[in-house]
């Protein structure tokens, strides 16, 4: 037993040494001149953070996540130490109901009237009176693809329909060059239901069963379900098609161009229509430094700043005065700034209650595991 113990203790010590104490930073000085932001990965121009620090003297600590699920779980746990978090519109009502975020002090946000009224109307069901949130970026879910690789396998086919990814006969032809789907149950079911001609916000489990059956038929051709890996995978040419978020696919395109690796990435909003979403700035109730968070939101409301942010992320912002300042290539791209005609085919996802959410996630697990 002694030997076993010694061996175990030696092993345990090594294990302890192997794990770095990452949580130690969290406890550091509350408030003060630090702003802690928790935002989506690949979602800000680092130069903008530097400029903010230069202007205000407030140091920025910036952490990232790649799914609403991770963000919401952390924020609902409380005591995250973040001053600013960026959830998507359809999750917002749950944050508000749980008392997880605080109302904004609009006196500290002079740029609010720059926001586009048409987009704010989309936001109204999620955040009545715009009391809690300020939109950062908006985007769509669509198809990102490697132009040459797909053209070789589907000659003459225009990539403009959900059919390419949801029709097993079509997707089978792309299996060998790599297919990625988002691992985001709510987003994926919204577009799958829409493709099947059902209400993307259906509350009927049978509709989700039908979508699951459809997804089960295409899943053998999917290499991986993941919500952020596809950016690099598309850019490197490791995969040839992915269901992804608009700006992320366009970033993959830029990265491929910068790497000069000969990979040509394109994005398409399918003609059947798709989900449009908004990511919004909100302040957790227990934020150590809400004043700094307000200053940051006010900073991001400045047209010239948010225009730079859009140039980097290749997502549209909600700031009317910023649009003329955004790079022409981006603001004229209907995949980024949807034309009124495209906008008509876009829909928002509503909030699900706990039982439906559990049912949807249970079905999603069936899709993921294939059983």
């Amino acid at each position, binding site marked *: 037993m002694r*030997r*076993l113990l010694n*061996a175990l203790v030696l*092993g345990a010590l*090594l294990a302890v040494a192997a794990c770095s104490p990452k949580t130690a930073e969290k406890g550091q000085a509350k408030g003060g001149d630090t702003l802690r932001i928790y935002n989506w990965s690949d979602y800000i121009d680092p130069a903008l953070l530097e400029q903010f620090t230069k202007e205000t003297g407030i140091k920025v600590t910036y952490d990232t996540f790649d799914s609403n699920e991770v963000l919401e779980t952390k924020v*609902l746990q409380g005591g995250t130490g973040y001053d600013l978090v960026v959830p998507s519109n359809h999750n917002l009502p749950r944050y508000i109901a749980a008392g997880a975020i605080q109302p904004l002090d609009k006196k500290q946000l002079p740029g609010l009237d720059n926001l586009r009224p048409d987009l704010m109307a989309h936001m109204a069901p999620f955040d009545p009176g715009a009391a809690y949130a300020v939109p950062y970026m908006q985007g769509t879910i669509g198809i990102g693809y490697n132009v040459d690789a797909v053209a070789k396998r589907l000659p003459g086919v225009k990539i403009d329909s959900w059919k390419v990814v949801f029709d097993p006969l079509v997707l089978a032809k792309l299996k060998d060059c790599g297919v990625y789907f988002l691992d985001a149950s709510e987003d994926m079911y919204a577009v799958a239901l829409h493709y099947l001609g059902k209400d993307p916000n259906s509350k009927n489990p049978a509709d989700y069963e039908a979508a699951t059956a459809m997804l089960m038929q295409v*899943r053998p051709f999917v290499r991986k379900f993941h919500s952020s890996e596809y950016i690099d995978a598309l850019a490197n*040419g490791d995969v040839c098609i992915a269901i992804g978020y608009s700006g992320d696919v366009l970033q993959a395109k830029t990265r491929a161009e910068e790497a000069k690796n000969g990979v040509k990435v394109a994005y398409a909003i399918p003609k059947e229509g798709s989900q449009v979403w908004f990511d919004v700035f909100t302040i957790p109730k227990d934020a150590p430094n809400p004043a700094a968070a307000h200053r940051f939101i006010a900073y991001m409301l400045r047209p010239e700043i948010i225009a730079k942010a859009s140039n980097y992320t290749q997502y549209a912002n909600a700031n009317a005065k910023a649009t003329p300042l955004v790079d022409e290539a981006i603001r004229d791209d209907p995949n980024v700034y949807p034309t009124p005609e495209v906008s008509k085919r876009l829909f928002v996802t509503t909030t699900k209650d706990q039982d439906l959410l559990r049912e949807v996630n249970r079905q999603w697990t069936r899709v993921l595991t294939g059983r």
Partner: protein
Amino acid sequence: MKGRGGLAAILPFLWLALFFAFPFLLVAKLSLSDTALAIPPYAPRIDWSRGLAGVRDFLAALDVETYGRLTRDRLYLDAYLSSLRIAATGTGLLLLIGYPIAYGIARCPPAVRQALVMAVVLPFWTSFLIRIYAWIAILKPAGVLNAALGALGLPPVDILNTETAVILGLVYAYLPFMVLPLYAVLEKQDESLIEAAQDLGATPLSAFWRVTFPLSIPGAAAGALLCFIPMAGEFVIPDLLGGSETLMLGRVIWTEFFANRDWPAASAVAVVLLATLVVPILLFERQQAKVLR
């Protein structure tokens, strides 16, 4: 141990109570709660302001409904069995690979031994995540492995995002935890035992099987425990190297915790894993210890 009682005896118990029993009770309590839209997202919570009545109401509101759900849905059983299968495969491979390594190191001259033990531990100097990402670069379709196979004129393999890749990653990551306990035992073995066995007519092979190996079983058991238990609950390696059909409990707990925001269900899965895996192993350990004594 006799006569050294006191603090030395209490400390391990304090350690166990503080770092095992207390967290476990918290998780067990959570598994009896229900989800709620609040911070934190579960109910009931103890209302301390009402004193004993608050505690009583709290206890009355706990129920085992979550466990009922675990038995009704085959997903949990499937995930459990496939976790055990993967962990068992990994542990078996680790024993096969780790034993010769540990034995080889223990047989070297002391100066070389130190260098070799260092070499086993050396990978820890690089971040765990970086090392697993490196495996992605090796295993991906246009990766290092296929380039090497191509250069040798062999057909390419596509094993990234499969169970094979998961087991490969597990074996790689846990190898030091198998080698070091084995080495610790083998290194202390008295070589005169082998000489005695050979004097009594044993061949080197039978001396190994009848002397060295039986004496090294505690090390092998320690290594197997250190590897098997965390591998059964492993999340990061299957997430990065596995495909979505690699169903493991770590992923199930993740889904419950993050996607469903269902802390009680996540806790219940964890409790079941602990109760059905760790408890029998500990009982077995105690029994083994008695036999050894």
